[in-house]
């Protein structure tokens, strides 16, 4: 922790970071995002295995868009999101630094998203055993069972949009749900509106989702949103090639191959 605080203090002192987005102790055993721009508050910061929020989500929020020099505590999930966001040209006017944990839990400073991209491991984000189990159960379902499953699940969705707010890749200033001319998504949180919303969100995540699990973690109703993105990523990989997070790969739907394979278009 000492090394961590030292790195942050130096970043703030040198002006390389005007704002540090890190973690602090939250309610009970929780860790939560912390925003620090004063070197005197550095002691508040922690970075351990319980830190799970994907802090890259804040980089595109209107409140922080104008801050140029930002240092972010980056978990592997955060790193993936940062690299994709950088690939989507979201940080062109930003000077970002990242604090990551190496295998021995030592804090490490990385400057610039390009450098972070080289640092990124190739391994996928692991699901919890409960998630794996649920996914396996889901894969075994028939079409009718899957429909019934989501009917049940989405009947609990209140459209609080926490999944959208917590998603680092959901940075549009005007989301499809708020476009009302025409009204793409039914306004009421009726089942149909909820299906439309979650299908729309998945489609807009195609080839962009970094599989960080923020959406599911944010859902107050505990909807198994990872199933949606996991299955989509798997299917995309099966038909369109590996899903590699890097600065220069174009997302799946931004490009094409003349010989893309499918078996359902006649």
């Amino acid at each position, binding site marked *: 922790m000492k090394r961590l605080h030292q790195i942050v203090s130096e970043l703030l002192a040198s002006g390389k970071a005007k704002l540090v987005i890190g973690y602090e102790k939250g309610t009970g055993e929780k860790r939560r995002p912390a925003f620090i721009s004063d070197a005197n508050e550095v002691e508040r910061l922690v970075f351990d295995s319980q830190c799970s929020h994907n802090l890259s989500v804040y980089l595109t929020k209107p409140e922080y868009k104008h801050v140029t020099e930002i240092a972010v505590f980056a978990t592997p999930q955060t790193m993936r999101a940062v690299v994709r966001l950088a690939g989507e040209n979201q940080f062109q006017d930003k000077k970002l630094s990242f604090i990551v944990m190496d295998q021995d839990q030592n804090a490490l400073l990385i400057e610039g998203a390009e450098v972070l991209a080289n640092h990124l491991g190739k391994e996928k984000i692991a699901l919890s055993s409960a998630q794996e189990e649920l996914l396996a159960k889901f894969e075994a*379902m028939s*079409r*009718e*069972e*899957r*429909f*019934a*499953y*989501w*009917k049940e699940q989405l009947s609990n969705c209140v459209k609080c949009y926490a999944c959208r707010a917590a998603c680092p890749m959901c940075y549009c200033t005007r989301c*499809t749900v708020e476009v009302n001319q025409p009204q*793409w998504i*039914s306004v*009421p949180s*009726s*089942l*149909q509106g909820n*299906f*439309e919303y*979650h*299908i*729309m969100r*998945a*489609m807009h995540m*195609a*080839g962009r989702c970094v599989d960080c699990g923020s959406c599911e973690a944010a859902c107050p109703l505990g909807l198994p949103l990872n*199933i*949606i993105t996991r*299955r*989509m990523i798997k*299917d*995309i990989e099966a*038909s*369109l090639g590996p899903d590699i997070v890097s600065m220069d790969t174009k997302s*799946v*739907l931004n*490009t*094409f*191959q*003349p010989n*893309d394979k*499918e078996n*359902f*278009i*006649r």
Partner: protein
Amino acid sequence: MENNIKVVAFVCNWCTYAGADLTGTSRIKYSSDVKIVRFPCTGRIDFMLLMKAFAEGADGIIVSGCHPNDCHYTSGNFHARRRWIVFKSVLETFGIDTRRIQFSWVSAAEGAKWAEIVNTTVERIKELGPYTEYRELAGVEAP
């Protein structure tokens, strides 16, 4: 009841629409249960249009455009193809009945193929019956 099904066809202006025209001028008879909506290109057909079609009463959907390499805009259909690959996967996750969506390539010269696509699709949708399963999701709980 099963005669009352509605099939909406989202077609590209340059190939399938012209193909459908040819079907007509060739006097090939095909099902009248299909309503054609013309688009500049399959690349323009947003997936939300298909969702809206189901929500507003369509029991089946046909999406059709130029064959690969024949796009009037060079690559619109290539983009569309990728979109449909992903969309089909997402719909299957949600248990939406993808048998009700027929994707096809029909060129301006394929009047007979258009008739065949429409007829087989309409027949299949008639077998499946109206898509009430999805439409019943709409609406708000009664007090």
